[in-house]
């Protein structure tokens, strides 16, 4: 009896050990569970960012994703700082109204500060108008103005306080770090920027979540590839600046 039990134990032991060494377990992608490792020292950040309060900046300059595989999710926050103060904007528009039309939507070039319509004044060169700001839609920066005289034309002047809007987007790299190639053409569809047109208060810093999620059944040929995210300020002149973060992806 003892021999039978001992033999059984040896067989079970060998079978279980064999499961591990002879036939390796292939990792199954787990799209919703990704472990991240952060190596940022908070105290160092505070010192640098205090000194750079009056500069517009982005951070970090480089993000590395390791052992990535289709179906997994990798994410990081890009920090963006706005150095601008609140500005006063003046826009002039030519507006014509149809019969019975008294309310007109006007698109602003810059986001209205604090979405506060009391920070807007409107005037018309047509004395039949009696203009007032009815509402503001932050999503598309549209001001609804009432009090227009129907079937008339005029030039209106809009004066308002504005904040700063940034544009954050996926970017094809101009250059790559040694050992990496440019991202596959379809990579743009794999990168999700949670807020691509954030509006900033004066001197405000925001964190924008960027997610890399490649569909599980995708075949990615290159093992090490790079893409960029670009941050640029809205409403610049004809010579504009953008700042980019390098994303270096190593496939499993």
């Amino acid at each position: 009896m003892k021999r039978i039990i001992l033999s059984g134990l040896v067989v079970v032991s060998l079978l279980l050990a064999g499961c591990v060494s002879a036939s390796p377990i292939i990792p199954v992608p787990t799209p919703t569970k990704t472990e991240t490792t952060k190596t940022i020292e908070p105290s160092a950040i505070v010192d640098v960012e205090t000194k750079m309060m009056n500069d517009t900046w982005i951070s970090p300059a480089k993000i590395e994703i390791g052992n990535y595989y289709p179906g997994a999710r990798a994410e990081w926050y890009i920090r963006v700082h706005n150095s601008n103060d609140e500005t006063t904007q003046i826009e002039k528009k030519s507006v014509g109204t149809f019969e019975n039309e008294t309310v007109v939507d006007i698109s602003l070039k810059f986001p209205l500060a604090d979405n506060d319509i009391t920070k807007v004044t409107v005037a018309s060169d047509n004395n039949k108008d009696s203009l007032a700001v009815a509402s503001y839609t932050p999503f598309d920066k549209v001001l609804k103005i009432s009090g227009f005289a129907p079937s008339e034309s005029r030039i209106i002047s809009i004066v308002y306080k504005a904040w700063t809007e940034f544009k954050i987007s996926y970017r094809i790299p101009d250059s790559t770090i040694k050992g990496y190639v440019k991202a596959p053409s379809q990579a743009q569809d794999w990168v999700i920027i949670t807020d691509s047109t954030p509006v900033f208060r004066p001197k405000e810093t925001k964190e924008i979540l960027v997610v890399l999620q490649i569909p599980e059944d995708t075949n990615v040929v290159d093992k090490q590839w790079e893409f960029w995210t670009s941050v640029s300020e809205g409403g610049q002149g004809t010579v504009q600046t953008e700042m980019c973060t390098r994303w270096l992806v190593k496939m499993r």
Partner: protein
Amino acid sequence: MRKMKKQIGGFRYLAILVIVIALALSWATPAFGATTQDVTVTATPSYIAISNAPNSWAAGVITASTDVSTGNNYFTITNTSTVNIDISFYVSANWSGTSSWTYGAPAADTGQLKVSSANGGVGGSSGVGNYDKTLVYGAGAAVLVCDNVSTATSPKWEMQLDAPTSFTHGAAQSANVTMTAVLQS
């Protein structure tokens, strides 16, 4: 007494069996764990910060087949980045007007922009006033103008318009130029 011995013997084998299974499973655990700990995302604190002034240039009234420039060191890039950077340029908005030129080497209603910098570094511009970097329309094809700019350096640069060889209209033209700062490669 013999029955009790038999029971103890049975428990002993059961205990050994449990230990063997536990050991076998403990060997297997790292392989299972690989499914959730493989993907890593790392970044170290680093900042890219540039601004440019002035933010526009008006070439004024131009004549065919001429090169009009800003003059040397017309623009200054204030660089307060905490890492060395590369600065590249591209045309981000093509010629526009009531009638538009085509962007490219000078031809009829076709003109282009060139830039240069005293801070070209190894792979960038060859020097101030050389206008050796011809800008291309579209991101992803930007031209490296200032290579490996150190954290203490704020580069200066200048721009030139290569005017069309002839005009079919006199509509004012405007184009946007974007400079890109990124961690040095």
